[in-house]
């Protein structure tokens, strides 16, 4: 990471198709260097660990290159080719299962490598996946206790002004952050095979399974309700992160603040959604006997996994907030002034051997970032072969953008007047008598408090298992994601949306 373009990671020599999709849905458009180091690196380690636990012989998931993520011109990417390859290495799954659930249903990239895993290893991955499921709950409980402790330690260290205490707390926080991202990506990656198995079994058991699935695949309880309650009442250290954008820790400084987008949550009073039937119970009571037993158990497992995913996301965000709070003090200790720490990696800030040069590194990076930020970055990258790469420019070519495939992710039909996040935020999540359809580019769990007041949701980005899709289903709000009209719809227009088919119609 030295020399020109040191902010960029090296593209993987074999998995060459990158997608901003899943990250761009939920995170600011560009990330500071420090945020990348607090997310990208742990995510890479987490996905490698997950892969190794499932497929101990998967040597392709090791090595000196980033395998699962990449950072180009300040923009984080998932390595779509590598994630699809992981699906291929598991029994009965394919890349399309990954892209359907997390990457806006784009066509999966061509296979880069042939499968290296033996049939026996693939079969052994099944009980290993089951073990992953089984371990999620205790891992979450353990992590939550550690995150709470770490928040307290950092708060105490900041209060006391003890650099030694703060340094020690930060080392523990780094370990905690690694575990949080590992857990979050374990839950995320586990949902792909679990959902695929459930879908296949469900279709065989119930003729109307495709209509039933979005109704029953719901987390038993969302952690966000409790957290937003804390944010509204102003109590609880654990809810503080909700007042900042997700993912970006240098969010108060230019230029990163300008990329944060309309994500800053505005806790509203109506956190709870409308009262609904327990639709899963309706379903299980309706389908009795053999049809019910297997599919119900599997659905409960998927629901638990969805909840674990939301909880791990909240823990990862809380862990990041620990750094957000401590970084200005740490930077001061390291002799880095003002906003310069946003251009450093976390290890450069914490490690004494870097301390002498941190200001210099930060200034160099600032120039690199300024240059990188002038480059428009595509959503999809198809990195050329290494030989071409050496011969040509370092500019990464864009993958031909696939057509957006509107996807209904939360069933139901709704009509209403288009509103924006800004308008909804200004109204505190409350709308008048007129049903409102919230339209935005993308959204994360942070807009949860705005959802109950709306009759429907349309987003430009998103997939079946995006956090916003999970939330929309939880609130029973018809939702269409990945719809190109989200770019052109204007506040005040009247639309009808169909959360089953993904159709959006402008009426007036």
């Amino acid at each position: 990471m030295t020399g020109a373009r040191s902010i960029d990671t090296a593209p993987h020599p074999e998995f060459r198709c990158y997608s901003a999709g899943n990250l761009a849905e939920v995170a600011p458009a560009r990330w500071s260097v420090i945020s990348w180091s607090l997310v990208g690196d742990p995510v890479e380690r987490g996905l490698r660990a997950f892969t190794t636990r499932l497929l101990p012989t998967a040597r392709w998931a090791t090595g000196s290159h980033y395998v699962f993520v990449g950072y180009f011109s300040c923009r984080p990417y998932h390595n779509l080719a590598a994630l699809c390859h992981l699906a291929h290495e598991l029994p009965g799954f394919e890349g399309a299962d990954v892209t359907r659930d997390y990457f806006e249903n784009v066509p999966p990239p061509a296979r880069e490598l042939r499968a290296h895993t033996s049939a026996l290893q693939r079969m052994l991955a099944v009980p290993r996946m089951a073990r992953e499921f089984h371990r999620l709950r205790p891992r979450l409980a353990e992590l939550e206790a550690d995150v709470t402790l770490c928040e307290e330690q950092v708060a105490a260290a900041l209060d006391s002004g003890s650099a030694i205490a703060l340094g020690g707390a930060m080392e523990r926080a780094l370990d905690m952050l690694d575990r949080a991202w590992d857990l979050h990506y374990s839950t995320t990656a586990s949902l792909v095979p679990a959902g695929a198995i459930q879908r296949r079994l469900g279709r065989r058991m119930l003729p109307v399974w495709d209509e039933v699935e979005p109704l029953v695949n719901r987390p038993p309880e969302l952690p966000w309700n409790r957290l937003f309650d804390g944010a509204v009442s102003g109590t609880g250290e654990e809810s503080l992160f909700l007042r900042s954008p997700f993912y970006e820790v240098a969010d108060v400084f230019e230029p990163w603040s300008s990329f944060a987008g309309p994500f800053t949550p505005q806790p509203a009073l109506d956190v709870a959604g409308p009262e609904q039937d327990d639709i899963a119970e309706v379903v299980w009571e309706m389908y009795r006997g053999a049809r019910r037993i297997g599919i119900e158990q599997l659905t409960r497992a998927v629901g638990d996994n969805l909840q674990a995913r939301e909880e791990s996301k909240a823990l990862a965000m809380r862990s990041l907030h620990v750094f957000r709070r401590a970084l200005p003090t740490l930077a001061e200790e390291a002799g880095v002034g003002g906003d310069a720490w946003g251009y450093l990696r976390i290890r450069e800030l914490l490690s004494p051997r870097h301390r002498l040069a941190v200001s210099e590194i930060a200034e160099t990076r600032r120039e690199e970032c300024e240059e990188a930020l002038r480059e428009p970055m595509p959503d999809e990258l198809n990195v050329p072969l290494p030989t071409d790469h050496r011969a040509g420019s370092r500019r990464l070519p864009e993958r031909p953008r696939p057509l957006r495939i509107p996807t209904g992710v939360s069933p139901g039909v709704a009509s209403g007047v288009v509103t924006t996040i800004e308008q909804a935020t200004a109204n505190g999540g409350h709308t008048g008598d007129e049903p409102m359809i919230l339209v935005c580019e993308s959204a994360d769990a942070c807009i949860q408090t705005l959802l109950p007041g709306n009759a429907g949701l349309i987003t430009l980005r998103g997939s079946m298992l995006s956090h916003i899709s999970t939330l929309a289903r939880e609130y029973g709000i018809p939702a269409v994601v990945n719809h190109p009209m989200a770019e052109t719809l204007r506040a005040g227009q009247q639309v009808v949306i169909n959360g089953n088919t993904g159709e959006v119609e402008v009426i007036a």
Partner: protein
Amino acid sequence: MRALVIGGTGFVGSAVVRAFDNRGIDVVTVSRSGFAFAGDAVRGDVRAHNLGIDPAEAEDLMRTVTHVVSCFGSVDWGAGPRLATELHQQGTRAVMRFAERCSSLERFVHLSSVLVLGRRSSSEPIVDELELGQSFRSWYEYGKFLAEREVRANERIPWRAVRVGGVVGAGEDVLPNPAHGIMAVVPLLLRGYPMHLADHGRFPCYPTDVMVAGEVIARAALDDGSGDVWTWFDDAMPSLAEVLMRLCSPWGVVPRIVDLPFLSPVGRVLAKRLGTPRETLEYVEPWPEIPVEVLSLLPADLPRCPPGYIEATGRALMRSNLAMSAT
């Protein structure tokens, strides 16, 4: 006085339209086809914004309509949750929103079904209760339940709900759909296949004649009062076995109804193999008990189901050959 019948070209809706028309009431039918058996016709769709009615027509209707009857829906017992939520629940919401904007509205009548009672574990008598902790045998039942719940929660319009049982009868304009409901098993019975029914089908299934149902719904719209539920069925309370027998009688066929108490899971599998729709198999156990006394809560001068109306259904189906072609 002007009545708007949503779904007025359906089996029950057409009878309601006839009932209004026979009384000389100006009646408007809203249907997807834009057709009407009597009175005026308006093209519309409850799934579309503002019922999909042309804005000028909608404005005229909102100014002139005094009674709204909601008869739309599908009785497809095999449909999925979209039927329940998109059509029945949200469609009913949309119809009520329209009714709320009718400045001279005197009554809103919602056509419900005794099947909203679903499957109950308790045998407490039912009058007009809705939320009884029941479970549901099909998305149709749940959809009708959701729709009635929406209506009962509405405090802005003078509503009345009419629950009817299985609607049969020859119908003046529309034949019953032989593919759905009880009728779906008739073709199999006519071919001589046995059908398993608990207690040999000696439990009530609350049928009613379609033309009488149309009269009752029209009366529900015209009679004073609101915020109540009328439950209507044939007071003779024929059992399910009796209904099936009378439906098949025009063909000279006696249905082979069997009770396989210890073999019911096997019987279900066999029945599926023989072509019985899976959703119909959910109705082979006794239905929730509704006391005949609920009929005494309704006006005394309501018409009674005419003798032979069930056989007339069979004859109508035989003439049209629909029952056999449904297989």
